[in-house]
């Protein structure tokens, strides 16, 4: 089994819900309560050393409960390994703590997840829309937002 997942399970036995290594990618599904501690552990532990936050994104599993998922992709420059951390959030309460204190570079990724999915990052310094214009209503990448529904600033509706 992979060293990353073993250490993670050993350190946070109650927070790690499940792990797998399908298709060669180490993945851990964790609870959201201590997410900042988990990420900081992944960054600082001498065997893991995940100093790069490569990506953060949201996924909308419409029809499932919990509906949303926040996915972190991390990379270690020194150890050359990767891990994927996933957190599931309910539709009524899509709130999770921000990871900006762990990696400052994750700031805009969280803003994009807010803009596109409506996932609220508690403690984020500037949680505003980043890709769409300010007046846009709704969260565009949710599965129940129709692809071609336009809210134009100027120009016709259709």
């Amino acid at each position, binding site marked *: 089994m992979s060293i990353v997942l073993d250490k993670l399970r050993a350190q946070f036995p109650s927070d790690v819900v499940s792990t797998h290594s*399908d*298709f*060669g*990618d180490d*993945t851990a599904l964790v609870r959201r309560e201590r997410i900042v501690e988990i990420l900081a552990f992944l960054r600082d532990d001498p065997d893991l050393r995940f*100093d*790069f*936050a*490569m*990506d953060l*994104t949201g*996924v*909308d599993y419409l029809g499932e409960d919990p509906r949303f998922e926040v*996915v972190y*992709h991390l990379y270690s*420059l020194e150890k*050359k390994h*990767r891990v*994927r951390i996933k957190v599931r959030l309910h539709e009524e309460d899509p709130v999770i703590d921000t990871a900006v204190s762990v*990696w*400052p*570079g*994750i*700031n*805009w*990724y969280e803003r994009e997840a807010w803009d*596109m999915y409506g996932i609220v990052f508690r403690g984020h310094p500037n949680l505003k*829309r*980043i*890709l*769409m*214009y300010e007046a846009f209503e709704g969260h*565009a*990448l949710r*599965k129940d937002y129709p*692809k071609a529904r336009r809210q134009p600033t100027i120009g016709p509706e259709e």
Partner: protein
Amino acid sequence: MAEPFVIETRGEVLDLQAEPMRINIGPSHPATHATLRFHATLDGETILDLVPEFGYLHRCFEKESENATWTQVIPYTDRLNYVSPLMNNVGYAMAVEKLCGIEVPERCQYIRVIISEISRIIDHMVCIGTNMVDLGALTNFWYFWKPREEVYKLIEELCGQRLTTSYTRIGGAMADLPEGWTDRMLSVCRGVIPECIADVNALLTKNRIFIERTMGVGPISPKDAIALGFTGPCLRAAGVPFDLRKDQPYLVYDRFDFDIPIGEKGDTCDRYMVRMEEMRQSLRIIEQAIAGLPGGPVNVDDPRFTLPGKDQVYENIEALMNHFKFIMEGVQVPAGEVYSATEAANGELGFYIVSRGGGGPWKIKVRPPCFPLFQGIPHLVKGQMIADLVAVLGSVNIIAGELDR
């Protein structure tokens, strides 16, 4: 901050410091490569604070890909980083192949390496060319466009289009290399491209004006670059030896002998030097790849991913059924999720694909290399002047198609 400007007027001291000025730069501005916007707070010409804004080219790649089949996503990937579209095609195809658990034949892997490296070269040419135009040195732009046209001729021969190539497919490529293509590629890589790089080098590298405008402009330390998530030439210019082709080799990069240029201070001059050297190293890789190019098929021999040959389709009922099923339903990919990253010209281009089985993706997230770079621009230019912002923005190579998706 500005010192009070002392004027001798009957012993009084005049304080000319005024309120900081808020200025909007862009989104339609020659130096912002269109569609980038900055809200700048200035004290005279010095930048006190900079807030970047983008989204002016948001074309909903993710939403479109959710409503398309696996193969229909490939044209959307061309338009991500539109100066090196073949690399995006390769990155996406590799991600889906990882999810399907197939490996393309060796010939296809070599071809993918060749087209990735030639795309890297043309991307760096655009970056340096347009960066220098912003600084006023237009000649390099014209010089770089000549080899680009030669390469476009080759790419057009390969897949029919100059820019939006859509060359790779899940499990292989659109078509094999045309007759004599490798010879023509070699003659371009031995002729026009090195001459052009040498010409631009002679014009710029020891040029006093260039050095004054780029040395010490927009520096970043390795620690900050890693914390901000930089990858690619900007990170290597800061001194961090991270290149996916060496650290997590994919395709057949581990068979080739090439070097990774590393900078020292992470300023604009270092970024330029790293890109110039990377172009030379890419030429080395292309030479080795063409020398070692094996024969054989280009597409994987699996009826689930490759159309059967036309002669089979006309003779054999099974091949006909295969053909029909494949055309009507498309590629069927198993359920699961995967993240696959390649070293694109700007940094790590990652594709995170979530599939629930079936003919189309559930979600595709592109991790654009310019996203953290654009986020880091205020960090690079705080305390410097607007003219330095222009130099830094050009050298960081923000491609809006990739940034906004």
